[in-house]
């Protein structure tokens, strides 16, 4: 019992989450209402899913800047297919496969091409944003009014019992990611590659393969987020997803994952994404102007990360 309590005390991201939530609840009573909590969870789900993929990329000591564009492109593809009456399952699978393939391509640029992850994904994020504009002609693509589009919009807006469907999807993503990282060989290789790539390679592990897998996962997660976002809004915007990589990276870092790779957990990322979700929600509830929202968010992120850094260096 005491032990568990100590564990919580050591978990700085969790403390930041609880403290922020408590402070907000004190300032605004609506914050803790059931409907608002569900709103926070639903709003968090998109970033949380991207951040899960980003956790993989950062754990191997890399980064994936392309997620925002992958989200936008895969969302636009799904919207186009659904609006033309294509089967929902097929549309969703296509978007997921496309996202995974783009991620795999990122991985190949980094491994076979020998590019820095930052540079490779900086290239793809720009390239793909252009591709979205070409594909959409710069106009939003509505998911339309076909029978498929109704099913499709359920993914983003529907409920299963009292809980929104995106929240289930987010939780499922967390669980699968947790199992991959903690209970499979590839998960172990991801941590090993991030900690000491050379030693991992010397141990007989194809680290290039590990990296391609990781970027493919990150692409797939971005595509999934794109599907959820498009389904929720009923249309794919040509600019959708732009800048999302920053919130995802923030969630991962807030969750205690080291940018140098090798250290970090999915649980941490979940908490990190929730911190950002709670902040966004609270600043809206309190009617803070959107200009100040970013300032406030940035300050909280810096404080949280500084606290974490202090704790780590004092060991």
């Amino acid at each position, binding site marked *: 019992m005491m032990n568990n309590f100590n564990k919580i005390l050591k978990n700085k991201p969790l403390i930041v989450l609880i403290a922020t939530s408590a402070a907000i609840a004190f300032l605004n009573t609506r914050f803790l209402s059931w409907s608002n909590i569900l709103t926070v969870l639903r709003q968090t789900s998109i970033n949380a899913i991207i951040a899960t993929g980003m956790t993989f990329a950062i754990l191997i000591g890399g980064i994936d800047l392309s997620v925002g564009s992958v989200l936008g492109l895969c969302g636009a593809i799904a919207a186009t297919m659904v609006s033309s009456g294509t089967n929902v399952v097929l549309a969703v699978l296509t978007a997921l496969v496309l996202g995974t393939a783009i991620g795999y391509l990122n991985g190949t640029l980094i491994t076979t091409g020998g590019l820095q992850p930052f540079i490779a994904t900086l290239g793809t994020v720009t390239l793909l944003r252009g591709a979205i504009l070409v594909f959409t002609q710069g106009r939003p693509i509505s998911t339309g009014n076909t029978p498929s589009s109704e099913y499709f919009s359920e993914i983003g807006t529907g409920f299963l019992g009292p809980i929104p469907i995106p929240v289930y999807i987010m939780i499922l993503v967390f669980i699968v990611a947790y*199992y991959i990282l903690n*209970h*499979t*060989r590839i*998960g*172990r*290789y991801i*941590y*090993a590659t991030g*900690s*000491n790539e*050379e*030693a*991992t*390679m*010397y*141990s*007989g*592990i*194809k680290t290039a393969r590990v990296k391609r897998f990781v970027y493919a996962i990150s692409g797939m997660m971005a595509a999934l987020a794109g599907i959820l976002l498009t389904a929720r809004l009923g249309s794919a915007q040509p600019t959708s997803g732009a800048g999302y990589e920053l919130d995802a990276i923030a969630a991962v870092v807030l969750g205690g994952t080291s940018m140098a790779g*090798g*250290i970090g957990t999915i649980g941490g990322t979940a908490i990190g994404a929730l911190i950002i979700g709670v902040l966004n929600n609270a600043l809206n509830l309190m009617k803070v102007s959107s200009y100040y929202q970013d300032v406030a968010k940035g300050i909280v992120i810096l404080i949280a990360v500084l606290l974490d850094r202090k704790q780590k260096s004092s060991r």
Partner: protein
Amino acid sequence: MKKIVVSMQHINKDFSGVKVLKDVSFNIYKGSVMALVGENGAGKSTLMKILTGVYLKTQGEIFLDNESVNFSDTGASQSKGIAIIHQELNLVKDLSIGENIFLGREPVSTGKRIMWNKLHEDAGYWLDKLGLKEDPRELVKNISVGKQQLVEIAKALSIDAKVIIMDEPTGALTPAETDKLFHVISDLKKSGKSIVYISHRLHEIFEICDDVTVLRDGELIGEEEITNLDEDKIIEMMVGRKLSEQYPRIETEQGEEILKVENLSNQFVKDISFSLKKGETLGVAGLMGSERTELMRSIYGIYPAKGSVYLNGEKIKVNSPLDSLRHGIAYVTEDRKANGIITGMNVRENITLSSLELFKGPLGFVSKGKEETSSIEYIEKMSIKTSGTKQMLKFLSGGNQQKVSIAKSLMTNPKILILDEPTRGVDVGAKKEIYDLINKFKSEGMSIIMVSSDIPEVLGISDRIMVMHEGRVSGFLGRDEATQESIMTLAVGKDVI
């Protein structure tokens, strides 16, 4: 009459209780070249690092021009005119030659602006002195290693160094560049500079040095004028110790040939051929730059190489460590921290890293239970001292980290185990335990290749010894004919030259 410039007297140095220098005295004479020789680990570098202020001495005194000095950092030694040129040159590759020479000492105008023209003119002056025909504005990365060496010397001259220490300066030079360097050294001598010349290449020492100081195991063996010495005498001074430690080599029945390497060549090694029998321990000796590690890594699939490798008479192709491990050839690296272990992971995760597929649980997940059982088994078998399987590797001692690294390889169940410097940086007790393990593997029928710079260790453990010199095999020695002298003779490439 020789005039002493630097005199280091009765220097002692401990590293956390381990004596690495014992009562060493060392002189540098004006206008002359002093060679500093000894085996790897004899204490040459430590002694020079003490002189230049990188390390603090534990005991002893240093006199510069009869004045007692004690440098706390390299800046202090430089300002008194002592410069060191490291084996791996300390130049900023993306800056120009001139900028490198005056790095941190750029001539500035009253407005604190760097006077680029003056800087490059001054740099040109020093380059001319050394006969280096390069534009001082050329980037250092665009000139050869030999010329970079001269830039380092120009830098030393520009700070008005009286003493220039050169650590293995010819390691990366072509014969022509070496000649050039020797000309420069003799010019420096004539102008009254003193040089300390550290090298394994004995013929170079006879070419340019005036005196020789020999260190062995952190002790001074002697200082002699070069005219009183010959190569054999120096070698004898370098290695002439008794086998002080006990090497528990055991005789085992050797089986048939298991591994045969034929004409292996790549950018590191040339025409390497050798074979290994079942149950045999092949020691691989050589000095720094003999490319022993590179050979082992080429066999293990890290570096591509031409040539053939046969396992049990069958030709095999190894393109990666994974291929190698699948053929039953495991490699324990010489550089634990860089590529042997993962310090941020725990003992269990390190030991099982190469063989995770052995621990399948339900749904293809890794069975941590099986992993745990197996890790504990290896921890006990190899007496790894750890608080448990969850202990992070960074908290283990060097010897225990080494055992974890070996355990990781063993778990892949190899037929051939390559151990690269298995006892480097481990204490005496752990050394003995590692030797015992090697013998145990041997008696279980495993074949072992052991690369080591510790010659007594090679003599004590090996059934047969392969000596390398600059990427080639310079000879094989049977157990009966191998002595420290015969190994060292082959290692310095005496007959090859």
